[in-house]
């Protein structure tokens, strides 16, 4: 057919306009599209020339992974579609968001970082200055410490909840920037210093205190993420990145580091991001994210169409180092087997685990539990209740469970166990 007469429509649009069934706009799922495509004999791609190169790529039209936005507000979050992802790296446009006063509009050229306090040489660094310093890249997870807060209350244990809604405040990227130790060496830390205060350039002026030991060990001033500049919602053009620490400490849109001899006790390390315990005390500076794992497949709302061989897949990570083991139970926690771990297993990064499972078609509960290099084993929710009481809102890293009903329907299943 002459070039000008070829349909200039996407595959989905083509199906929509050529199928009587879908004329009403009922194409909803990839499965629908494939099914109808088979019926309607779509264009044979071996018989028409394909699209030309382009400056920016895009996903296949049928693939539409999206962050979950539950409330549009200045202080809000969006969640990574964990069930849609493969491997360990989160595409930057699907990295979870947590902002406390929206995303500031910042120009690369005029952004500056002030480093001062207990230092020999208080210094202002422009981005072009920071770019000249020796560079580091690290693949590391980032998790909000509020992740999973919806499955801690015994009386309000959900069943119809996706892994995205539940644990989607988790993402993994290759972060690139300057080691904080390089910059602090440059300004000369004075004796007696033990903390820093990191401050953002958003209208919340997000501020967190971080132990000096930590930032000297492995924190970076990150300007790159998965091969490109950090996106605005991740802190463009500069963020602090503290591997293994609760996400809020990795202050975005970083404009200031003050070296101090004590924490500043900002609002977000006193009234927020602290953990009321059962004995009436409040745990403060609970910074490290303990080991955790989640099964991403099968999970709600997936329906297993038949019994037989299925691969249980998920992610495991620890803020204290490497994951050394992930166990999976397919019988409600009565027995556990080691899942296969996909290397490389990196420090403070997510690991993909897999377990081949021959489902017999009966009701069951599947669980996972991670162990890290310190020997710490991901606890049960009962262990957390026992240790912390029931009133905490952060660091709820307990084992999750999915129920597989004989119908194949998968729902969140922890409520069946507690």
């Amino acid at each position, binding site marked *: 057919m002459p070039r000008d007469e070829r349909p200039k429509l996407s595959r989905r649009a083509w199906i929509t306009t050529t199928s009587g069934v879908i004329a009403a706009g009922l194409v909803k799922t990839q499965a629908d599209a494939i099914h109808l495509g088979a019926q309607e004999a779509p264009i044979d791609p071996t018989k028409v020339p394909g699209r030309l190169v382009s400056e920016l790529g895009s996903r296949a039209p049928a693939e539409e992974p999206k962050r979950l936005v539950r409330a549009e507000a200045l202080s809000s979050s969006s969640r990574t579609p964990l069930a849609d992802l493969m491997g360990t790296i989160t595409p930057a446009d699907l990295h979870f968001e947590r902002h406390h006063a929206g995303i500031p509009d910042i120009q690369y050229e005029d952004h500056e970082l002030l480093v001062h306090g207990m230092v020999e040489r208080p210094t202002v660094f422009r981005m072009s200055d920071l770019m000249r310093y020796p560079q580091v890249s690290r693949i590391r997870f980032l998790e909000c410490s509020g992740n999973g807060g919806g499955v801690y209350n015994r009386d309000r244990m959900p069943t119809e909840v996706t892994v995205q809604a539940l644990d989607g405040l988790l993402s993994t990227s290759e972060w690139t920037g300057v080691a904080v130790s390089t910059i602090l060496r440059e300004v000369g830390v004075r004796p007696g210093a033990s903390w820093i205060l990191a401050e953002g350039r958003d209208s*919340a002026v997000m501020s967190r205190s971080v132990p000096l030991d930590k930032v000297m060990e492995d924190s970076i001033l990150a300007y790159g993420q998965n091969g490109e500049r950090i996106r605005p919602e991740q802190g463009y053009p500069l963020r602090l990145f503290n591997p293994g620490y609760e996400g809020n400490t990795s202050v975005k849109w970083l404009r200031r580091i003050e070296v101090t001899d004590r924490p500043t006790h900002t609002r977000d390390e006193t009234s927020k991001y602290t953990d009321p315990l059962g004995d009436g*005390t409040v745990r403060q500076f609970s910074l490290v994210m303990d080991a955790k794992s989640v099964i991403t497949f099968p999970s709600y709302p997936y329906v297993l169409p038949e019994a037989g061989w299925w691969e249980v897949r998920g992610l495991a990570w620890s803020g204290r180092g490497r994951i050394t083991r992930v166990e999976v139970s397919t019988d409600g926690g009565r027995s556990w087997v080691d899942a296969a771990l996909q290397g490389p297993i990196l420090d403070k990064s997510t690991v993909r685990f897999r377990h081949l499972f021959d489902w017999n078609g009966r009701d069951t509960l599947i669980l996972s539990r991670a162990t890290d290099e310190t020997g710490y084993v991901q606890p049960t929710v009962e262990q957390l209740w026992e240790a912390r009481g029931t009133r905490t809102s952060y660091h709820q890293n307990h084992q999750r469970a999915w129920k597989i009903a004989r119908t194949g329907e998968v729902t969140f299943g922890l409520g069946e166990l507690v």
Partner: protein
Amino acid sequence: MRLPATDVGLVSAVSREWGSPLRTAARRAAGLCLVAGLLAACSDGHRGATGGAMAPDEVAVAGTAEGLPAHAPDRFGFGTEASDARVALWDIDVRPDGQGLPPGRGSVAQGRDVFNIHCVACHGPTGTEGPNDRLVDSEQWDAVPSTRTVGNYWPYATTLYDYIRKAMPQLTPGILSDDQVYAVIAYILWMNEIVSEDAVMDAETLPAVIMPARDKFVVDDRIGGTGPIR
């Protein structure tokens, strides 16, 4: 040199006394340097720690270590020295000991006016109605974060200054004068029955306020490992 992951937990565990700095990494580095007789190379404890900014999974190939190379200069000299005025412009945080509080003062009565103009829309007429964070509640908090208020949960009154000056009101942050910030803090503390109706907040009186929740806060004691779940 890489530190055991458990040392990260140690940082918190040993830092119970805020004013008593314990830099595990630097001390370890210094100790190792002494053993190796390399004092000169380790004269700056943080140089040792800089070399530690690598993890085994990233240093398998010679020459790809993340620490600074041996021939790196002591200083690169990039960046511009920050003048005292430049530092003062941005150094706006306030600590529990009062460091960072500006001159100025404000009373409960003045604070009532500030609150009713700038705060009431989000926090309600008595600081309890919302829609945003509840500010007043003298009862114990419960499982719902919104019940953790200035009166029953905030450990330091100075944090109010640090936060309000930086981030409030949410839609027009920075609009309040120093006196207005002191005043609205006095009013919020009075609504929580922490200060009297004739109280005046300034750089002297604010750090002296003892918050009801002050002694409830304890430092994280989780350390990973095979011990009890904390």
